[in-house]
């Protein structure tokens, strides 16, 4: 066990955990940040996606000891009032069915648009292909990413 200080959503959080503890479980069990979801634990489904230094990462496969001082942003910190263009687009397109994968989908989409505000359809598909939606909302996810891209002037 060791003490880790993490910068998450602009705040400092502290946890005494094993070095190999995945960020996902530190967020969920230690900090009560429950937006990132557990789906597979091996980085295959994307439900646990958060931003690390502005890049989308799978928090289920990222040991807490590898984070250091890099800034972590979770769905809870994406915007203050749930009004990030991606979140607004998700609401407008009524994307969610069960909703379990959607925090991860939104974080993947937000990371894509922060680097590439006007992605092509192929670029959207490549960026989003690591996120599984078991309900099959893929069409609306794609439409919402395009809509969010239009919202970002």
């Amino acid at each position, binding site marked *: 066990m060791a003490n880790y200080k993490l910068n998450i959503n602009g705040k400092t959080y502290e946890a005494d955990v094993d070095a190999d503890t995945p960020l996902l479980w530190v967020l969920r069990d230690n900090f009560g940040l429950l937006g990132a979801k557990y789906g597979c634990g091996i980085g295959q489904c994307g439900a646990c996606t958060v931003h690390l230094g502005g890049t989308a990462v799978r928090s289920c496969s990222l040991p807490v000891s590898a984070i250091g001082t890099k800034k972590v942003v979770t*769905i*809870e910190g994406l915007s203050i009032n749930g009004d990030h263009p991606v979140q607004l687009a998700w609401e407008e397109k009524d994307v969610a069915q*069960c909703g379990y994968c959607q925090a991860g989908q939104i974080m993947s989409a937000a990371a894509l648009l922060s680097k590439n505000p006007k992605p092509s359809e192929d670029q959207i598909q490549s960026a989003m*292909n690591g996120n599984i939606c078991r309900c*099959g909302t893929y069409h609306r996810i794609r439409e919402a990413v395009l809509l969010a891209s239009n919202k970002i002037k």
Partner: protein
Amino acid sequence: MTIPPKTSRRDFMKVAAAATGGLFLGFNWAGAATEPMTLLSSGAPSPADINFNSYLSIAPDGVITIFSPNPELGQNIKTSFPMIVAEELDADWSKVKVIQAALDTKRFERQLTGGSGAIPHSWERLRKAGATARQMLMEAAAKKWNTSASSLTTSDSMVIHPDGKKLSYGELATEAATLTVPSDVKLKDRKNFKLIGKAINNVDNKDIITGKPIFGLDFYREGMLYAMIQRPSGFGMKIKSVDAAAAKAMPGIVDVIPYKNNVAILGKSTWQVMKARKVLKVEYEAESQIESTEDHDKLFKELLDKGEATVRRKDGDVDAAFKGAAKVVKSEYQCPFLPHAPLEPMNFFAHVKEEGVELIGPCQLPDNARNDVAKALGIAPEKITLELTRLGGGFGRRLKSDFVVEAAEVSSLAKAPVKLIWSREDDMTGGSYRPAVRYRFEAALDKDNNLIGYKLRGVGINAGNCTREDNFPSGAVDNLLIESVEHKSPITTGAWRAPITNFLAYAEQSFIDEVAMAANMDPVQFRLNLLDRAKQKPVGAIKYDIDRMKAVIQLAAEKSNWGKNKSLSQGFSVYFSHRSYVAQVAEIEMKKGVPELKKIIAAADCGIVVNLSGAYQQVRGGVVDGLGHAMYSRLTFKDGAADQKNFNSYRLIRMKEVPEIDVHFVDNGIDPTGLGEPALPPTGGAVANAFFKATGKRLRNQPFILQDEMKGVKLEEKM
């Protein structure tokens, strides 16, 4: 249909309090950004709210609270149910608040999710709940204005006087709730619907997009232990010995408890439990037969030839028909085991105390779960409360209550509040799968290409009756024999979205296509002719509606310009499941010799569409589900254990692999007949038939991607 008895506000509060077991505590550490999960106990209406019936209460400020009793797993019931109540109430939808109700068999009927049945079963009941309250509000206004209720109208949570003056529902609620509940209320004419049929957004959107804790896995109770269970290594195996010393010594581990055929590991965090599980030493031994997929493949062939069959339906004289046939078509289709793989793995919170048991989590049959826990613990069901969280998918897996019982058992053994969690690997290897099935179809055509004989023999592994003997084409063929053979296996199976029909439809609709080709008929016309025949000269029982089936066939053909675009290879499929009808056309385009799945057009008849947004996505999602599993997914076994344990070896469909999907609804005005499952069954057949049209090759086994016919073929990844 009975209207729930009117409970007084006081009774209602008693019910609410009993159902929740007191105060709910959330995260208490400093800096946590997350509010605790909103359960009925924390989200219940304020005491000022006026209760009208089981479904709704109205606050003096005009906020209308509608309780949604059925588990929400993505079928959008938590939005659609309240829409139906609000429609008849003439409520201002922007002021409606929806609350997931806890299990309460006294207040609600059929509080479950399964069989695409929630809306068909509750349609009239929900409408009457809204209409009754509306009538009472109008009578209260009539009293105030000293006029008759029949002279008044309503709109947007207001009662309106003919001279234009208005009273809000909030102002009228206290008075209205004291009036006698009318026994007979008039329901709206469909043409006056303002909400039903519109696209209304999911009421939980805001919580979903901001990552609020709303799922079972998000539930937290101060002092609870995290628990996982090590189960036998395969089906037919049992635990021989356990050495828990190393696991118990791991940091954060509170206890390791072998019980029944399981070992429960309890600790202070999920990761600590997962780590301890890795050092737990367990030896296993066989307790019954141990099966592998290889054995099943042999078994299927043996049992198709000489297994003991149960005759499900017999019309006419099949032997004579086949003897006199000008042409016989015969082929076999096979589908593998599938796990449900909802993205949220199984989990449940349980707190077993002296005075009773508290259960909180995601399940599709809460009443069954409560009864199963009562049985397992030897206590009365009345001593158990169950609150529902949102479900991160179900697909039938959460109809079973094994994981709820496990949570209660472990809490009972540990004498502590426990959240039981399955890992993805537990979910994939833990059973309750869609059964594996192989079918043999035979058809006899006379010299004029009339279908005069039809035989179906299905062999399933723990599949029960793997046929639907009264479904199409039964009723349209004079001589018909449908039988099933079941192999009993230690591998456990269960209902999987559109049980049986999720693979039977693919096999049958592919075979019908083969028969149409043998008869030199257009596959759409071939089906329509059979339906005409069933209408004019029905043979035996017909449990599908011939006209509704014809209508979806015609709508799909029309919307796809069936047969008109020669550069496209179109495949057709239609299926009746549960109570609804869906026809689909898959379109493949050959590009430099490579087939590319471009589009699937779906035409659905689910009666009146309640929420156009939810319904549209329900059909598209069903098609994606049907396509993905037909194309990519299978679960195989070696020595009783599933080979695929996670999404690195078990393939689920992803965004790049999904074609364009168009959805159309038949507008026939009949009461809703359900949509959670019926869009899935036709997809595999439509795609396989289009693939045949494009390549001349039949896909007779799932998943398609692994078949010889697909060698050298690349289905391009395209939206």
